[in-house]
């Protein structure tokens, strides 16, 4: 057991836990967040993505110790305090870009990170970046539309 400090959605957290625990389990179990999902535990599908110091990162393998002192944003942390959704979240709603929605966390987090880095990212760049994010329902076409739309807002 070790004391680990990190910031999650703007709140600093100090937790006593096994430093090898993957960040995903800490977020879901200790902090009771639902956004990041367990998909593969192998960094192959993107369902568990969070934004770590500004960059979309899978959280299912990363030991929590590696997030020490860092800033983690999860899906829950994207909306403003008054509930207004982030433009990417809003675009997903507008385009109804989900079916079962299990992949949606990773899709949204990754898109936010890509557009933060390059607000003018084109379709090819978005496809390239989100290639890690698996969707089994086949909602890709709508997701692409949503992200391209969010780019404009």
């Amino acid at each position: 057991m070790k004391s680990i400090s990190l910031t999650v959605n703007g709140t600093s957290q100090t937790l006593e836990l096994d430093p090898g625990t993957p960040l995903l389990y800490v977020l879901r179990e200790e902090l009771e967040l639902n956004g990041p999902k367990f998909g593969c535990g192998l960094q192959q599908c993107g369902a568990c993505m969070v934004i770590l110091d500004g960059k979309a990162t899978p959280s299912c393998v990363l030991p929590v110790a590696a997030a020490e002192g860092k800033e983690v944003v999860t899906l829950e942390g994207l909306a403003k305090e008054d509930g207004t959704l982030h433009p990417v979240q809003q675009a997903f709603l507008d385009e109804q870009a989900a079916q079962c929605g299990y992949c949606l966390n990773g899709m949204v987090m990754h898109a936010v990170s890509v557009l933060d880095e390059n607000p003018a990212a084109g379709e090819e760049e978005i496809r390239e970046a989100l290639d890690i994010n698996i969707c089994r329902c086949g909602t890709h076409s709508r997701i692409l539309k949503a992200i391209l739309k969010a780019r404009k807002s």
Partner: protein
Amino acid sequence: MSTRRTFIKQAGSITVGFSLLGPLACTTEAQNSAPIIPGGQVDENKIDAWIKLLDDGSIQVITGKMELGQGLSTAILQVAAEELNTPFEKLSLQLAETGVTPDEGITAGSRSMETSAMSVRQASACLREILLEKTAEKYANEIASLQVENGQVSGAGNTYSFKEILDGEQVEKSVFEPTEYYGKTRRKFVGQPLKRPDLEKMVRGEAFYVQDLRFPNMVHARVVRPPSYTASLKSIDDSGLADSPGYVKLVRSGSFLAVLAEKESQAVGLQRSVKGKVTWDTGQELKQADDLASFVKSLPSDTNVDEETGDWADAASGAAITLEATYAKPWVMHAANGPSCAVAIFEDDQLHIWSHSQGVYPLRETIANLVKLPQEKVHVKGVPGSGCYGHNAADDVAAEAALIAMEIPGRHVRLQWMREEEHGWEPYGTAMVMEHRAALDSNGKIQGWQYELWSDAHSTRPTSGDPANLLPGRYVEASFGTPGQGWRGGAIRNAPPIYQTDAFTLTSHIFEGPLRVSALRSLGAYANVFSIECFMDELAEKADVDVFTFRMNHLQDERAIACLERLQEMTQEVNPADNQGLGIGFARYKNSASYCAVAALVEVTDGNPVVKQMWGVIDAGECINPDGLKNQTEGGMIQSASWTLKEAVKWNDQHITSVDWQSYPMLRFKEVSIVEVEVIDRPELPPLGAGEAAQGPAAAAVVNGIYFATGKRVRILPVGRLG
């Protein structure tokens, strides 16, 4: 000692804290509605089996079906909203739950609109008429002057809430034939692309899935899997295990072995370490399939002539051309994005299970038999999970959680499979071989058609109460064995071509293959339509007629023709480049449900086929939600393209080797196509199942597109890289 009521209260407080699931909720506990009667049956002939007024004045819509990501919740709310002329905000939805909702069997076969939504529509229209009558009686109004709007009845300057009209009573009358269906006459909510209320919960990261359930003092479980289907547990060295962090206990029954820990990551750690401490008796070797088609045909099978019309010999003798072709598809997995999950607790002699099963009632009966409890002691509540696309491991994980919960009474047990378990242990969609032979006359008309297919079962769902249909059923101490031959009907779904011929023969050979199998979206229709529609293109080429005209020449059904014509219009301007081809595919799902035509523009570069764009047309009769219908169809097209181009389960002599997203590749963003779907709405007709209509047509469109791009006719799936 707590009673059932305290369970309801406890669970209620949790679910309320879990914020959740309403207005689209899967909660009844959170609402002050009827108590759960775990062994009870709900009389589906009563109005209040489908629609109820809750104490807070809101309206609860009830379905015995499950939300699987297909948008069922929204469509069902829409039909109720329409009949009561009341927006979503005043409605909540109760999903399948034993003892609470009607027993609607399995949410499958694209039947929920035809069945559940129509029951809700009728009950809601009945409720409206009763409310109007009662208002008129109670307040001495003319019915004609009254109208239902926004959860109230109004007329002559007064408004009356449903609650005051009914005086706190439910409408327990039996359903009857109402004088009017607003869904047919007004269509203010129905037929509109209303947004899904559940999507906002998803996008905000609110608790929504069974994976998100949390209960105080909940313990986490993982199952330690055998090295093969038929291996048995010989011994386990449990020395030192109790010292592992968070260790709670080991649960063993025969070859079923599970670990329990306080934290989820600890359970995962234990699963890994226990794996190294178990000795297994190796089971039988798995047969290898070096050549898919000959392997499948070599398996012992049970043969049946399913259909024989006309005289093949006569048709063939007068033929100008006889053509034969053999197609095959491999075992394909559901591979849910989120591994299957369930929560269970055994408390006060009752077993409660939260599950993303497609059939809570059949699951209840089968789990009761597995854990040897009377049915009335088992309660299964449906909570959405990751999309399943058919019978995946949802029932298995629920059964395992139940077995484990029985060993640790009083604590909630949460079990989620790991990726390698989901990939390696779910029941797959079976491989099939499809052999077609047809005789064309000199006018390019098909005179006769012979179709012979080979398939394993397409459903081994736990519908008969036999625990052999649940994965742990075969491993527990008193083993229930493995399921027998499944339902033959799945293999021949869409096997008879929709096209007119003078003679047709269908022969099916049902084999028992080496892998665990069950229902995958559209069952045999995917392979049957894929092969029929590719063969139609092969025949069209022989007849020297274009692929649209050739199909239309063999169709009389006007709706079928309208679908193809619409597709032709949509793709008229498409001008494929040299390395591109435009292919089409068409079918009426089950030959009795939705019509769907698909076109695919495929580009082949250095042997790598990429679908650039797809177009779809769907006629599902009365369309409840056009955007929902488009979303389902778009998803079906992309998923089918993925199966067709990339997916095949692999195994060695012991076990499945497709255990993650690298060893089981699927279509990803870089190669996924843009899709566009148009709906032909027929509000005057009944709604038809639509969720599975695109699978077969899309597969054929892709493969036919490859042919036009390259001149290469692919008959064995997946396409992979072209040689």
